[in-house]
């Protein structure tokens, strides 16, 4: 009896689950093109992997206006995993038509022949982007592999109220930043001016860019790797010295301890990118109205330079059967004023397009005390410089985490960690068959 009942229940569960599965599979959103007579009988269907919040709503605006090209957004987990997943899908032959590609990952997509050259389709939007940003999607070649979407020029976030309390000026140079770090430690041993994160290679990359590093470059057919160049050595040596001295903390960003420190005022600055307000307002809600932004401290007094942390582009898969339609959507998404407005409002991103900056008018809530937030950001953004990324940035970034984890734990020489990054990167590129210039 019992068995029969159990078996019956099991069978019932099975039947319902499978039914759900099958009906779920066919429940594709039906095309809203039904009403439009101009639409072709079968609209082109595109899939788009992205992790920008509310991207589906932005795509809906496009779908409404373009019955012939229907884009379905599939929200993915962001970061390195997304890149690995896209590369696997491309290799297996069923990638999405469009994919969000972080600038540092784009070269690995190109090296794997996973993204298409969309030079012809993007010629009309080239003028909408600054040269630095455009270089990130051409990789210094004649081809165009993506349309820039957002960028992350770096600036210094600081606790204005606590700076006043401890009597420190906003540092204009890194030398002043180091002095301020010492002052803070003297005034209150519980408080740190900043922290060095051995878990965020993108952050360190931005700081190295500010100092003028050029980690990769292409000459002819050969890659030149110079992660241990003088500029990077200077940045690493500087932070290594502060960590060794004990005036800078060494907890990584985006961890619960870090959130706590941001909240309770034991961490006073965060050299970060323009997307910082979102993170701060979510992870440190108590600090609302207390933070402000300033340009990054400079290496030489009187300079004004910055780097990039993060940012991504929209690429078209090489195996997409509808490359032209996909590129058209990518163009629209990243340059059309309506799309840009939606990206800013719904997606909370900082557009890479030069027009996009002007559309940012509402000061973030969190920075209500700094009404010129976006003007500041735009001014700083104009001073940011990037560099060409190599084809195996994920290897370099992992080497950063491993080497700097160790260097931070033992308080040893940070420049040695940079040399490790260089060696690991070269070894991997050699193994993967890239030609290296000496």
């Amino acid at each position, binding site marked *: 009896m*019992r*068995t029969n009942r*159990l*078996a019956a229940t*099991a*069978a019932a*569960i*099975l039947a319902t*689950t*499978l039914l*759900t*599965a*099958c009906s*779920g*599979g066919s429940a594709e959103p039906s095309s809203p093109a039904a009403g439009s007579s101009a639409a072709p009988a079968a609209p082109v269907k595109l*899939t788009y*992997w992205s*992790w*920008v*919040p509310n991207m589906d709503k932005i795509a809906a605006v496009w779908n409404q206006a373009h019955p012939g090209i229907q884009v*379905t957004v*599939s*929200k*993915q*987990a*962001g*970061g390195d*995993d*997304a890149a690995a997943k896209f590369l*696997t*899908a491309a*290799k*297996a*032959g*069923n990638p*999405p038509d469009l994919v969000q590609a*972080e600038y540092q990952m784009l070269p690995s997509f190109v090296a794997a022949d996973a993204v298409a050259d969309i030079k012809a389709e993007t010629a009309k939007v080239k003028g909408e982007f600054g040269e630095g940003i455009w270089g990130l999607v051409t990789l210094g070649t004649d081809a165009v592999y993506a349309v820039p979407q*957002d960028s*992350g020029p770096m600036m210094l976030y600081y606790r204005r109220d606590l700076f006043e309390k401890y009597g420190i000026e906003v540092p204009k140079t890194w030398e002043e930043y180091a002095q301020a770090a010492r002052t803070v430690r003297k005034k209150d041993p519980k408080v740190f001016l900043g922290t060095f994160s051995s878990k965020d290679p*993108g952050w360190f990359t931005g700081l190295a860019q500010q100092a003028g590093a050029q980690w990769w470059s292409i000459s002819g057919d050969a890659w030149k790797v110079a992660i241990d160049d003088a500029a990077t050595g200077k940045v690493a040596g500087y932070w290594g010295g502060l960590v060794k001295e004990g005036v800078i903390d060494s907890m990584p960003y*985006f961890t*619960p301890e870090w*959130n*706590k420190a941001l*909240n*309770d005022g034991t961490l006073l600055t965060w050299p970060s*990118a323009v*997307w910082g307000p*979102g*993170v701060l*307002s*979510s*992870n440190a*809600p*108590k600090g609302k109205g207390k933070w402000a932004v300033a340009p990054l401290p400079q290496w030489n007094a009187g300079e004004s330079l910055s780097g990039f*942390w*993060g940012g*991504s582009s929209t690429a078209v898969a090489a195996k997409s059967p509808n490359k032209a339609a996909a590129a058209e959507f990518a163009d629209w998404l990243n340059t059309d004023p309506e799309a840009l407005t939606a990206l800013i409002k719904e997606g*909370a991103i*900082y557009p890479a397009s030069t027009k996009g900056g002007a559309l940012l008018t509402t000061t973030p809530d969190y920075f209500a005390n700094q009404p010129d937030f976006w003007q500041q950001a735009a001014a700083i953004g104009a001073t940011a410089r990037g560099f060409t990324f190599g084809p195996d940035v994920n290897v370099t970034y992992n080497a950063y985490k491993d080497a700097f984890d160790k260097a931070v734990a033992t308080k040893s020489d940070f420049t040695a960690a940079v040399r490790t990054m260089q060696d690991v990167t070269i070894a991997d590129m050699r193994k993967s068959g890239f030609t290296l210039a000496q």
Partner: protein
Amino acid sequence: MTAVTTLTRPEGHARAATRRPFGIAPTAVLVLGAIYTLFPVGWVVVAATKSKAELFSTPTFAPGTGLLSNLTDLFAYRDGVFWLWLLNTVVYAGGGAVLSTAVSTISGYTLAKYAFPGRDLIFNLLIGGILVPSVVLAIPQYLLFSEIGLADTYWAVLLPQILHPYGIYLARIYTQAAIPGSLLEAGRLDGAGEWRLFRQVALPMLTPGMVTIFLFQFVAIWNNFLLPFIMLGDDHKFPLTVGLYTLLAAGANQPSLYNLIITGTMLSLVPLIALFLTMQRYWRTDLSGGAVKS
């Protein structure tokens, strides 16, 4: 007299000897084990009650005031996609576990009760299969499923979980212990066919073992991350594990939605706990049944 004392002494020794090592120690070990397993669960439950501001600022085990707003936010996130992910997880775990239990039971029963050429070879291959972690297979499986056009479908997650070497192994061992060969022999003499023997004689006796396999598989699929992560591109087919991960890894320039993730994790524990509580009675027969029969 001497005989009596020599008789009682060893007995007293034996009693003391059995009592001392097994006195409070097992209970203490179990209590430690319970704390070890329940501590993270307790943390999730407490953390789910904290609002954004409280999550990283109040003491770890101080209850917060944000449970209701966390729940509302989670259910409102992307128009309630959480429910869809929960339904998907039920489909994968429920469907997968039922199918896997069916396949395991039939295979295990066959391997245990019928002698046929190649039986040992098959069984040894299966044992070898237990040693291969399913994580290793995920990418080859993805390439195979892409080849036949099934990647990014419900089947891509369901099918690989149906054949479960450990389940078959369990079913075979359990069949050997629970069903005496003479019983089946008697059935055959009475004129029952093989299918009838399996359905009406073997199955009722195998129920506790099947429940065990079902629960093992259900929990394994419920918690599985890598397979659906690789197989699925469409976020409307994601199970909870992969879905909640998109909230965590929201990209470098977006904050992680810790509150929603923790609340979602807490809710995703509820069905598992409910399942264990309701299936427990079948499992209890398993333990006692095994004790008597072996």
